[in-house]
């Protein structure tokens, strides 16, 4: 198998694994902390997006970060870096 084939298979496997990992949604206390969380997750190689928190998850307007990582790992990382957040939730 050539290097190019190995590389292609690796990319496919990573894509499948990423799809397999459910997204964790974490409500954040501000857009700035949501952006900071996204930046932190991206440094870990975890794809993430900042989204508007759905109305049924929020007492007012707010932002969440959706990250392709396990809830415990994602929340743990935020806590270790002192980034305040609200509850994690599923959609």
């Amino acid at each position, binding site marked *: 198998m050539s290097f190019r084939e190995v590389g292609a298979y690796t990319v496919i496997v990573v894509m499948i694994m990423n799809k397999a990992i459910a997204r964790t949604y974490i409500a954040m206390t*501000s857009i700035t902390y949501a952006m900071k969380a996204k930046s932190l997750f991206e440094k870990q190689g975890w794809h993430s997006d900042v989204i508007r928190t759905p109305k049924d998850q929020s007492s*007012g307007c707010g932002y969440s970060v959706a990250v392709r990582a396990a809830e415990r790992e994602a929340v743990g990382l935020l806590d270790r870096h002192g980034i305040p957040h609200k509850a994690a939730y599923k959609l």
Partner: protein
Amino acid sequence: MINFDNSASSFPKPLRVRRAVSEAIARYGGNPGRSGHTLSMQAAEKVYEARETAAAFFGAETENVAFTANATFALNMAIKGIMQYGGHMVISGYEHNAVSRPVYALSQSRGVTFSTAEIDLDDDRTVENFERLIRPDTKCICCTAASNVTGRILPYRKLAALCRERDICFIGDCSQAAGLLDITLGDGFDFICTSGQKALCGPSGTGLLITDGRYPLSTIIEGGTGTGSALLAQPDELPERLESGTVNTVGIIGLCEGIRFVTEQTPAAIMRHEQALCDRLIRRLSRSRRITVYRTEARYVPIVSFNVEGISSHEVSQRLSDKGFALRGGLHCAALAHNSLGTLPQGTVRFSPSVFNTSRQTDMLADAILSLS
């Protein structure tokens, strides 16, 4: 017109700043931090990028960088946020009205008392002058890092150490120093207040309030922050607590590029270039006995204040304007500093070059000034 009034507003701006502002007008028109739609989120990402850039430049946590309309807003927010329930504070005799007026206003409306420390030729004596004025009810020292009239650099690191020792807050007006000196929270400031449009090369209408987070601020402006909207109380979290209302997205994006430009050039290299132009001008002006240059052996940022005997500072700046040079005459919104300098009521003419000015331009200006004397 050749601009030598860069300590008011630097001009021209670096090409990358002009491009960024143009792109911001064209592409980032959404309201950042207010919605979830793509336009809003794209603008929010650009604002966050600028916040990260400023945070790295000033050694702050990203969330502790608040964008303001200018340095005056930042200083009002810091001073009134700390002092609005009374107490005593110490300022220097070199302050801009952006410091002295809010302090005076607090003394009239909130019973705040204040003392003014004399700036000595010797930095250690200056620090002693501040120390002597500290009282049991002193809450903060607020002073400029460098005078906007003469460019004199104050011993801000020593003053910061004094504040830490006495457990009082230290607010720095870094408007003339940021972008020329390596100003960071590591110097000991609790609050760095600065404009964006001077040596940071950003657009007008931009400023920064940066904190180490040790002293929570009471707010002087409340309103929409895009978060916690169901609550009447202003959110506690920074930077939203200090950024009520829509921020200046276009200006912030431009400021981000200005800071990147300064970072790449380095403040030290910019300072060297501009200082060489100041030294060149001073050498030329010293040929005339009718010209007084307000410099001592102390350290200065690249500003030169001077007067031509027998002609008011306004008249000199007007005549220079007629010859194609922009310099500011008068009191520079700093009567306190001119009082300390002994240049009331006529003020001075102020020369403040930028990274884009040249030796040839400086020589042309020197010829024009000498022709007046």
